[in-house]
């Protein structure tokens, strides 16, 4: 079991001697092998949530646990996929992917096997010796996802992973992620500001309030997806055309928009 649990998490930031609340009582559970998308208005603290789960930051109060253990710092059991990829530009694709395994002392032949397995899964064959700057944004993000997946982490933390990609590449990557999740399901916390991406990819969508962030509403996509048999459709545009999809998307939008409109006043 490798659930991600936020228990009454508060996070304050200090700036110019003043203290600002970023998160105010976040409660959220991402169940084992579940994909939860976190959406919210800009600056609501969704990235802070992810960074707390990653261990890059610590909560001011409350606690974050992954697989039952409190998060004390970053580690390979919680692999992160960054919006800006954060691949090592001086390492080849294969070396970038193998880096985490080398840290864990995985023997060379096992490492080789796992790396080539994930390279095949991510459609990166033929690019093993290329350097990140020689690849398109979409291909770079494939490498970043491969680098996270190959660790077989308890949790995958994705911070607007497709935010830096163009619209077409984005759609391809969204389909890819669904395909990979079928082959190798993981517990995933997924941050996005794109509502249709959230509804398409997630089992549940958690909507946050504007800053200071809390979880405002959680939509159950999984039961709708199963009930309306979204999986019959191979293509993303067909899924997004379904009435049940449109309904969920509109609902999420409205929920988000209330926060944004409020923020203007």
């Amino acid at each position: 079991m490798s659930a991600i649990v936020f228990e009454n998490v508060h996070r304050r930031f200090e700036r110019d001697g003043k203290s600002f609340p970023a998160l105010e009582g976040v409660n959220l559970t991402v169940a084992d092998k579940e994909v939860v998308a976190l959406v919210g208005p800009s600056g609501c603290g969704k990235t802070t949530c992810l960074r707390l789960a990653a261990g890059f930051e610590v909560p001011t109060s409350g606690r974050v646990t992954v697989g039952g253990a409190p998060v004390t710092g970053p580690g390979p059991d919680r692999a992160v996929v960054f919006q800006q990829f954060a691949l090592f530009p001086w390492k080849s694709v294969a070396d970038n992917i193998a880096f985490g395994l080398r840290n864990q002392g995985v023997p060379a032949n096992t490492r080789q096997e796992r790396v080539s397995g994930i390279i095949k899964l991510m459609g990166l064959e033929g690019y093993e010796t290329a350097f990140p700057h020689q690849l398109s944004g979409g291909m770079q993000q494939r490498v970043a996802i491969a680098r996270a997946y190959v660790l077989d982490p308890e949790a995958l933390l994705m911070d607007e992973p497709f935010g830096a990609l163009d619209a077409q590449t984005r759609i391809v990557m969204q389909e890819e992620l669904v395909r990979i999740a079928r082959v190798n399901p993981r517990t995933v916390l997924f941050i996005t500001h794109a509502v249709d991406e959230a509804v398409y990819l997630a089992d549940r969508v958690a909507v946050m309030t504007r800053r200071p962030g809390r979880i405002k509403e959680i939509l159950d996509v999984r039961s709708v997806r199963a009930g309306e048999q979204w999986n019959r459709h191979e293509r993303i545009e067909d899924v997004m055309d379904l009435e049940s999809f449109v309904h969920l998307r509109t609902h999420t939008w409205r929920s988000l928009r209330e926060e944004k409109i409020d923020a203007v006043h």
Partner: protein
Amino acid sequence: MASPVNLPLSKIEGFILGIVGLASFLGLWFVISASGLVPRQFLPTPLDVVARTFHLLTEPFAGATLPMHLAKSLERYTYGFLLAAAVGVPLGMAMGWFRWLDDIVTPIFDGLRFIAPIAWVPFAALWFGTGIGGPIMIIFSGAFPPCLISAYRGARYVDGKYIEAAQMLGTSNLRTIVDVLLPASFPSIVAGLRVGAGLGWQSLVGAELIVASAGVGYMMVQGQSNVSTPTVVAGMIAIGLVGLLIDVALRQMEAFVRRRRGLA
């Protein structure tokens, strides 16, 4: 008809202008020195210099031929520069990584780094002698600051996403420094090495003017004592050319590193 003032020139045009500039300089030099306007001992003609240079290539002066003097200078230079890089780069990186070390070293370093290398000559001679130790210290003091500063900047301002990526991949502290911080800082380090190499070479000649017993600087001092101004100019040309070669070589290396990194 008005024309734009700063139209970019083609490569050929730029090259031709460079030749024109150089030719004018040599021409002016030739006219002044050959006309007798200035006594020959004060300013040799370009032809005197060329003749003297060829002579020095084979005939020893002040105990050695010009190539032998150069070899001696390059030996000192190599030691001094390598020492500066070997101390400056790791120290700079450590200062960039450990904030407390930065706080300790920076005031001392800022206090010392504006002192010209040649100002160290008296102490260099006292502490390390006028053979090889003294000049090495002078070269070191010239080459060290850029090596340290660029390594420091590289490490201090490394993109935080690489460090976070390394951390979430379970990288130990030592491996983060060796496998992430060092390569991430590498373009900055190489740029600093290039600047340090140039400053070190400039300092060497200053040091040798005073302390050495062989080397290009020494040869020039001996030339001055013997009122052989062509020897002095031959030394200047040798210094200039070798300095240029060092710079070109390191520039190539820097460009290579940047290309591999996808920065250029």
